[in-house]
């Protein structure tokens, strides 16, 4: 019975997907034909901000202050988790014996860990040129730490240096905003030379802000992962 219901649900879902996606012209530029607000950003974003990825130009410049708020919310969530899980007395660890990972998994995780961190760095440094950005790159870095946790139990995340990295990244973000206020006219305004379009050094302050966001999000999410795993009931 359960199998029958799930089959019917699957067929309905797939039919719905097919009918919904049939109308969407993938890959074509539809927004030029209509008079929509998105058109302004698509046409003007590149020359105003110098970022090839329009989403990035919106997230970091047009609503950069909002992004600061989002990062702060994530920070507060991490603090809240730490406060809930923190306890003065030593919690008794897991009565049942845990199965440790096999040698192959341990070695593989240790081998892959720096490569995945490098890939996360690549994603957030190229945030103004390709899809992705600070949040996505930070999530990839945090998942690298999760892999380290799954692979070898004896490796601990250095929480102190994590907190240092996180605070430094936050200070850099706010400092760039204040520098824009000093040299320009508004908070988070671009005060660096624009550089050549489609190159790594373009978009003024956008790459720097995204590096700061990437490290901040990565450190926060790794801290959340560590908090959830260390406190295994």
């Amino acid at each position, binding site marked *: 019975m359960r199998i029958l219901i799930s089959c019917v649900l*699957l067929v309905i879902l797939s039919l719905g997907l097919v009918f919904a996606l049939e109308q969407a012209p993938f890959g074509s530029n539809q927004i030029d034909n209509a008079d929509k607000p998105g058109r302004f950003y698509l046409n003007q974003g590149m020359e105003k901000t110098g970022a090839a990825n329009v989403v990035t130009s919106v997230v970091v410049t047009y609503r950069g202050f909002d992004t600061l708020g989002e990062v702060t919310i994530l920070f507060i969530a991490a603090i809240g988790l730490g406060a809930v899980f923190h306890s003065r007395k030593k919690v008794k660890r897991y009565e049942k014996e*845990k199965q*440790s990972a096999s040698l192959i998994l341990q070695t593989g995780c240790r081998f892959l860990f720096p490569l995945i961190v490098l890939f996360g760095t690549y994603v957030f440094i190229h945030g103004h040129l390709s899809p992705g950005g600070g949040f996505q790159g930070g999530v990839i870095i945090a*998942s690298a730490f*999760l892999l380290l946790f799954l692979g070898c139990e004896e490796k601990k995340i250095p929480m102190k240096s994590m907190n240092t990295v996180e605070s430094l990244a936050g200070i850099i973000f706010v400092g760039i905003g204040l520098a824009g206020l000093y040299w320009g006219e508004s908070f988070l305004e671009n005060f660096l030379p624009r550089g050549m379009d489609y190159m790594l050094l373009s978009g003024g302050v956008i790459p720097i802000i995204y590096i700061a966001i990437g490290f901040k999000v990565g450190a926060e999410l790794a801290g959340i992962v560590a908090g959830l795993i260390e406190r295994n009931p």
Partner: protein
Amino acid sequence: MIVSIFLLVIGAAIVLCLIRLIKGPTATDRAVALDTVTTVTTALLVILALVFKRYIYLDVALVYAVLMFIGSVAIARFLEKGI
């Protein structure tokens, strides 16, 4: 033209894996089916990059491969009562 045949075959492969995902008698069977779907989908994303002539879809495929590898390892460690 020929690419659409490839896409159809890949769609059939994913449907076969989904059958095992629904039928699978044990949890491990389902995890194996999911892992196979992951690999097939990575190939599908790369072929879609060729269809739409978008270089950046390769990045998407790489991100998908990384995250689903970690997901598979997490499921496996959970099933063997490691975490």
